[in-house]
């Protein structure tokens, strides 16, 4: 097959995949935001259970990773800032980096690994065991039944986890600031607050919501398209993680560009 044809087919396949994700997300969004007003409620009990799994149980690993990332950021920033005699800017550097970028992104990576893969595995196994078919024969729409509770849980938990990640990153940076940069905890947090504006936190939260949608859509879509056999469930799970990470990076680029273009001069 000519190389140009391969590129063309790959592009078409990618666009078709994005179309499938949009279709799935639209169905789930309708189930969450419109159907309750038509008498078809989301399974809120299941959504709460998913929220516990997606959010609460992820707190320890998100805390550790964000703490270390904050500490690493502070070290890397201080490495250059002390040559310029601007070590006092460490607090602001860590805060802006965490809230605008690394808090949402590191949280997304953790959630992809824990929950995005679990979504694909759960739905993929159900597909292999004919449980998805059983739902349809019982007049239960699989997107409404399976995807909507997950979307509710992710939309609630991702912003919360991201906010917590931002805080733990600041604490990590604060450890360096207090031990090596002449801050006290009070002055460090004061410098952090002074460096940030509301927009910085808003940017991070918008990204976290978009990452929540991507992770849910990709994980569930990979589950629904699982082939027959247990090996295919493993392939779907792997594909869910890889594609989620890639699409989250792409979304990050898009929204960072938008926020840069629309930033006040």
């Amino acid at each position, binding site marked *: 097959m000519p190389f140009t044809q391969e590129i063309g087919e790959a592009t078409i396949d990618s666009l078709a995949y994005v179309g499938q994700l949009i279709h799935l997300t639209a169905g789930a969004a309708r189930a969450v935001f419109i159907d309750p007003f038509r008498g078809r409620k989301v399974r809120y009990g299941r959504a709460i259970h998913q929220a516990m799994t997606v959010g609460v149980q992820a707190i320890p690993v998100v805390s550790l990773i964000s703490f270390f990332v904050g500490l690493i950021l502070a070290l890397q920033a201080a490495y250059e800032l002390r040559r310029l005699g601007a070590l006092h800017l460490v607090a602001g550097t860590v805060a802006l980096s965490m809230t605008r970028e690394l808090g949402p992104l590191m949280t997304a990576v953790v959630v992809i690994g824990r929950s995005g893969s679990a979504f694909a595995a759960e739905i993929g*196994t*159900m597909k292999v*065991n*004919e*449980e998805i*078919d*059983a739902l*349809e*024969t*019982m*007049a*239960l729409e699989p997107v409404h039944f399976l995807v909507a509770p997950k979307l509710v849980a992710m939309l609630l938990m991702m912003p919360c986890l991201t906010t917590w990640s931002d805080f733990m990153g600041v604490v990590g940076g604060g450890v360096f600031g207090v031990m090596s940069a002449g801050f006290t905890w009070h002055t460090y947090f004061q410098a952090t607050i002074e460096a940030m504006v509301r927009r910085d936190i808003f940017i991070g939260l918008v990204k976290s919501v978009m990452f929540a949608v991507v992770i849910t859509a990709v994980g569930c879509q990979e589950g629904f398209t699982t082939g027959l056999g247990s090996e295919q469930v493993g392939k779907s799970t792997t594909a869910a993680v890889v594609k989620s990470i890639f699409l989250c990076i792409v979304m990050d680029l898009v929204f960072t560009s938008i926020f840069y273009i629309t930033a006040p001069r």
Partner: protein
Amino acid sequence: MAEELIPRSGPPADRDSAAISVRDLRVRYGDREILHGINFDAPAGQTLVILGGSGSGKSTLLRTLVGLENPSGGSIWIHGKDFACMPESARDELRKKMGMSFQSGALFGSMTVAENVALPLREHTQLDESTIDIMVRLKLNQVGLSGFENYMPAQLSGGMKKRAAIARALAMDPEILFFDEPSAGLDPIIAAGIDDLILKLKQAFHITILVVTHELASAFLIADRMILLIKGQIVANGTPAELQASDQPRVRQFLDRVPEKELTAEIDYLQMLTGEIPPERQ
């Protein structure tokens, strides 16, 4: 997935006596046609057994009848309504009057047996929890699973999973029940128990039952009518006695369990493996 259906002009003349009427049903997967113009009726209140070997298309036929596949031609009339041409919302309303038991049971692993059986009642009715609880216990009692309400599907044996799946299929008091290989993978005693349960369901509730199977002993025990599918076509349609008395070679080969002629020549193996006619034979 099969292509979209081209609707017929009206229901078959004898639709009033049949719960399900199938006319010239065709199903394709891509370029390959699996069912080639299937015609049959499932009489109301009777058990129709769909017999056939592996690859005959009987599972595809069952999946099409319950709406999991879309036909590429022909029609399916269920209680006088063209099932294949309905919008999805109308199909869902009809599905609430049907129940299906899958080969592996297809119980939801994250729910207990009681929660599995209660699911259609919780989603489709306004019944309060205490009434649902009573109905669940009643359905489990009907299939001989009283006391297993709080068991998870993973804790059940194969036969018990099938019984739990049947209880779930009965939850909404369906008018039509579908069974996909109900005896597959079960020992003879457990399989006989499932056969007995199917007979009792028909006698007690006058449900129309469609069973897909290749187990001859079960088929002849439970069937009021039988159809034999071979390579996507019906080769026999009648009562168990009529099929047993048939002298058609394909029917006799299936019922008498006669294996395919042994391949002795290499060229026969080549043709069997590749599915293509070798140049020497063209």
